[in-house]
């Protein structure tokens, strides 16, 4: 089963990391990612720009309404995601724990993927 691991963290906190702290977290995460990649389990990984860069299209009306900012005002924000192959929920939770050890604070939402189209971006 393919899982999306949605990364939530307080933007205030992540935004107050120094460059060195940020780089240290990324380096620790890279180790976990390399392991997943070597097992052939790692799909696309994305780190999102801050929610201040977000725009939301409300499509519950016609024409849709374009709003500045993220969809939801929450205490912790969606800051990135992974797509990871996991044998079972327990497996994927183990993976998530490894990521959590590398980057404590906030939360990971583990969400099974229904349909996945890898797509093809032109380089």
């Amino acid at each position, binding site marked *: 089963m393919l899982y999306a691991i949605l990364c939530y963290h307080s933007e205030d906190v992540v935004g107050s990391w120094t460059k060195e702290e940020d780089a240290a977290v990324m380096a620790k995460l890279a180790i976990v990612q390399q392991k997943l990649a070597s097992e052939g389990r790692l799909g696309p990984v994305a780190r999102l720009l*801050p929610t201040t*860069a977000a725009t939301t299209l409300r499509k519950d009306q016609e024409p849709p309404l374009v709003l500045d*900012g993220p969809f939801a005002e929450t205490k912790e924000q969606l800051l990135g995601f992974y797509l990871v192959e996991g044998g079972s929920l327990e497996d994927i939770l183990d993976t998530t724990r490894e990521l959590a050890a590398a980057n404590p604070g906030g939360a990971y939402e583990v969400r099974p993927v229904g349909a996945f189209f890898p797509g093809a971006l032109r380089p």
Partner: protein
Amino acid sequence: MTDIGWIETAVSAARPKAISALLRYFRDLDIAEEAFQEACLKALNLWPQNGPPRDPCAWLIFVGRNAAIDVVRRRSREAELPEEAVLSDLDDAETSLADRLDDAHYRDDILRLLFICCHPDLAATQQVALALRIVSGLTVPQIARAFLVGESAMEQRITRAKSRVAKAGVPFETPGPVERAQRLAAVATMIYLVFNEGYSAASGDIARARLCDEAIRLARLLLRLFPAEPEIMGLTAMMLLQHARLAARFDADGAVILLDDQDRSLWNDAMIAEGLALIDKAMRHRRPGSYLIQAAIAALHARAARPEDTDWPQIDLLYATLEHIQPSPVVTLNRAVAVSKVAGPEAALAMIEPLADPLSGYFHYFGLRGALLTQLGRVDEARDAYDRAIALARTAPEAAHIRMHLDRLAASPATIPASGG
């Protein structure tokens, strides 16, 4: 991160919100700061054992408020608060407090806190120092280092600024739309001052680069509170796009490297991407203000893979718009750089001729004048201009840069293409 590193991060992340909420309760900057300090001490004691609270910011506000109520009561010789229940039953109280404190609630609090720091009675340097101390939570030694002044001088500057603010009285009424817009504009200017203080430091000094990071952090905070303000997007974008070049702006000896000569692979791609995204968002509002235009100019530089790819005609156009909405000799001077690329040095020189008087004390005026005259082969006049520039340089790297041009003039007169901007 060290064992208490995560606490420091959580506390510093919560600081602007927590202090501004405490300021609303106590209407006194000193008490609000002390209250926050108390709460931080308690956090250092309690969090390592208990783990982080679900909402650190709400925890700090709650604990800080109780601690300060205690102090305020003691001062007024009233009965002290009972010790029990202050911390024991925190979770419930904290949760309900957190529920009430959504961002909309913080919005005017944080704006007020920032606004206090830009009181018109305060000099620009005082505003910047106060904001860095109170909102960003930098220590006095850190701020002193950034300003290149002694610690006691900085301590004095901040204390004086605080007492001025206290005397002036803090505006506690909820602002109306017009007032809110005015406050927002004043705060944006102050944030840009913080940024410039760091940016204009003509070396790769870490303490000063930190000011740029802080300014960007404050701007993002403001933008989260006011997500639909195109000028705040523009301000944030402009700072991101300029700061993205930090690693390329100075050589190993701390000497300035001009835009044309910078190694563009050293530019920070994530910052540029964020800046460009913010400009796109702001453009949709179709109300271009001066920050957005300056951001758009910075974006045209950022988008050029090589200096020769720079869209100078578009930059010239943007400066013309900026001249229109915010006329100033410095804007015209900057436009002249674009004009020199589009129409040649002669046209640019004609453009800056009338600026000789208003910019007679401005380093960059003579720097550009020298460069244009060099391009035109008017070596003697170029040397004069460069001499004036050196006399007006505020930093050693600025002076060194001009000296380099003078050396080149001496080496092979009239054959050197000048580099603007």
